[in-house]
């Protein structure tokens, strides 16, 4: 699907599709830019997003702290920026990882068929049918040393980042897998696939070169739509103390202490949640707009 086709007008509907894509994309770009500005701004102000200043707790906005400070005196604006970096990083990486895992499983299940297909799809059904958050809480609480991971990883500062990306991809692959499986099932009976097979192409070549490119559109749409969901999951796990762990900031863990200080400093509860809401809405609108622009059948809706 070329970019030209993507923006090509179908009358007013095409224009609508364009506008629907434009503003969420701009919002996400602005968020990413703001998040990227965090470290240079911190350096310019001579501060740090995790710098604790117990003499200036819950301070109101000032020139030094544009949005004030939190319950242990950290700069709220810098933490919001770092939180944005973490949320977008987790959302993007985990969505990509889940999409790759789901595509691989879906391709194999759909192209191979038979018992393997039945087994993989029952597995997907199982994962979908489970109480997600209770299980994620257990998975997030696991002792990584008991899993036999090297101490260098377990003790690193970023372990909570790796853990949440791994966890979310582990439960997030099912949508893409079912989609890819369904499409590969019908594609594998088409002439061009049969021709490739007759010419002696190996199964992995048929899957990657002949089937996969035809599935780019639905995979891109599903992955975009999953980014928002993943950011929501990350934020709730971080909020519960099981996702991103302080001192690293995330919009979720910034809200952890907000319930206690809600009467004193309601703004601390407001900002991070608004950022999550804006980001996730933009992701969902972008995914929906992409679907409308790329998939004529869904576009009629």
């Amino acid at each position, binding site marked *: 699907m070329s970019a030209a086709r993507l923006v090509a007008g179908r009358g007013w509907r095409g224009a609508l599709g364009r506008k629907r894509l434009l503003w969420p994309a701009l919002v996400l770009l602005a968020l990413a830019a703001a998040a990227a500005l965090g470290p240079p701004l911190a350096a310019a102000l001579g501060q740090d997003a995790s710098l604790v200043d117990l003499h200036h707790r819950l301070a109101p906005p000032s020139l030094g702290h544009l949005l004030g400070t939190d319950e242990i005196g950290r700069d709220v604006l810098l933490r919001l920026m770092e939180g944005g970096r973490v949320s977008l990083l987790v959302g993007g990486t985990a969505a990509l990882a889940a999409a790759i895992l789901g595509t691989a499983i879906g391709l194999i299940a759909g192209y191979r068929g038979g018992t393997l297909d039945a087994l993989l799809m029952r597995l997907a059904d*199982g994962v979908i049918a489970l109480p997600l958050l*209770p299980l994620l809480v*257990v998975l997030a609480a696991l002792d990584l040393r008991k899993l036999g991971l090297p101490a260098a990883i377990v003790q690193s500062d970023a372990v909570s980042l790796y853990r949440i990306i791994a966890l979310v991809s582990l439960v997030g692959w099912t949508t893409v897998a079912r989609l890819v499986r369904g499409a590969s099932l019908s594609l594998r009976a088409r002439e061009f696939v049969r021709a490739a097979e007759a010419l002696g192409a190996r199964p992995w070549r048929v899957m990657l070169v002949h089937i996969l490119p035809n599935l780019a559109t639905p995979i891109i749409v599903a992955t975009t739509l999953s980014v928002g969901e993943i950011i929501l999951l990350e*934020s709730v796990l971080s909020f519960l103390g099981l996702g991103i762990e302080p001192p690293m900031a995330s919009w979720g863990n910034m809200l952890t202490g907000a319930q206690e200080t809600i009467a004193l400093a309601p703004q601390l509860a407001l900002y991070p949640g608004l950022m999550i809401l804006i980001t*996730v809405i933009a992701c969902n609108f972008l995914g929906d707009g992409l679907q409308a622009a790329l998939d004529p059948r869904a576009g009629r809706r």
Partner: protein
Amino acid sequence: MTRFILRRLVQAALVLAIMSFIIYALIGLMPGDPIDLMIASDPHLSAADAVRLKALYGLDRPLFERYLAWAQAALAGDFGYSRLYAKAALTVLAPRLGNTAILMGASFALTLAIALPLGIAAARRPGSAFDAMVNLLGFAGISVPSFWLALMLILVFAVALGLLPAGGIATIGDGGILDRLTHLALPVATLTLASVGGHMRYMRGAMIETLQQDYIRTARAKGAGELGVLLHHALRNALIPVITVVALSFGSLFSGALVTETMFAYPGMGKLIYDSVLGNDFNLALAGLLLATLTTLLANLAADIAYAAADPRITYG
């Protein structure tokens, strides 16, 4: 029909058995172990005692053997002792399950009562101002983090206005129905607002698709009233995909309950699972997770049956 239900029951039992083993193994991978906790609470215990205790509780045996012993006891109704509550795990669970059922039932009914009519109404004129508003609300609903929604509701209704209690299940010394209801208001509102958007969008999408069918035009041509067309000819067909989504959302209701109950200190299953996982209460966490899984599986089963009942074209193979 009976054969279909029986086969699905066997499948569900199989999934539950597999899940129970996975959860059992996962719980064993959580930080700390029961013997360490005992040693920490009693300084007189020696290393030799620890070895003896491990043997006594069977913790020196391989994982699968331990699982079988646990499963045997569990099937007889013995889920062990809760460390945090010093009671049998099932005794702790039972009242919590009732509380969660009230919370989930109320918000589920409210969600459907709001989402389905709005979705149907919006589908009548896709692209109208009303439709755009419903659509925007739907997007906001699926995009809002439920724990933040809870925080905002607490901020407005409990902190700023002082109208409703910020948490708990009842005022101590007051067990009246009105008191229970005021404590339910914010948790139910949170769960409802967080799930209404998704259902509304599905209902709208399914209804728009159905209203484009030929038989709808036929019904209109034959002079059927607008309400009759919507409810009698369109709704039944549009409901089929919605039923699946609604039933599958039962699993996410548990996720919502975990967050909401924790936020509002509401003593239900979700908060219990969270507390027991964080508090190293292995027996209770295991029993709670299994109960949550069982409930979800049963809801999915009910969905399949309802799906088959709503669509006569489906055969029970």
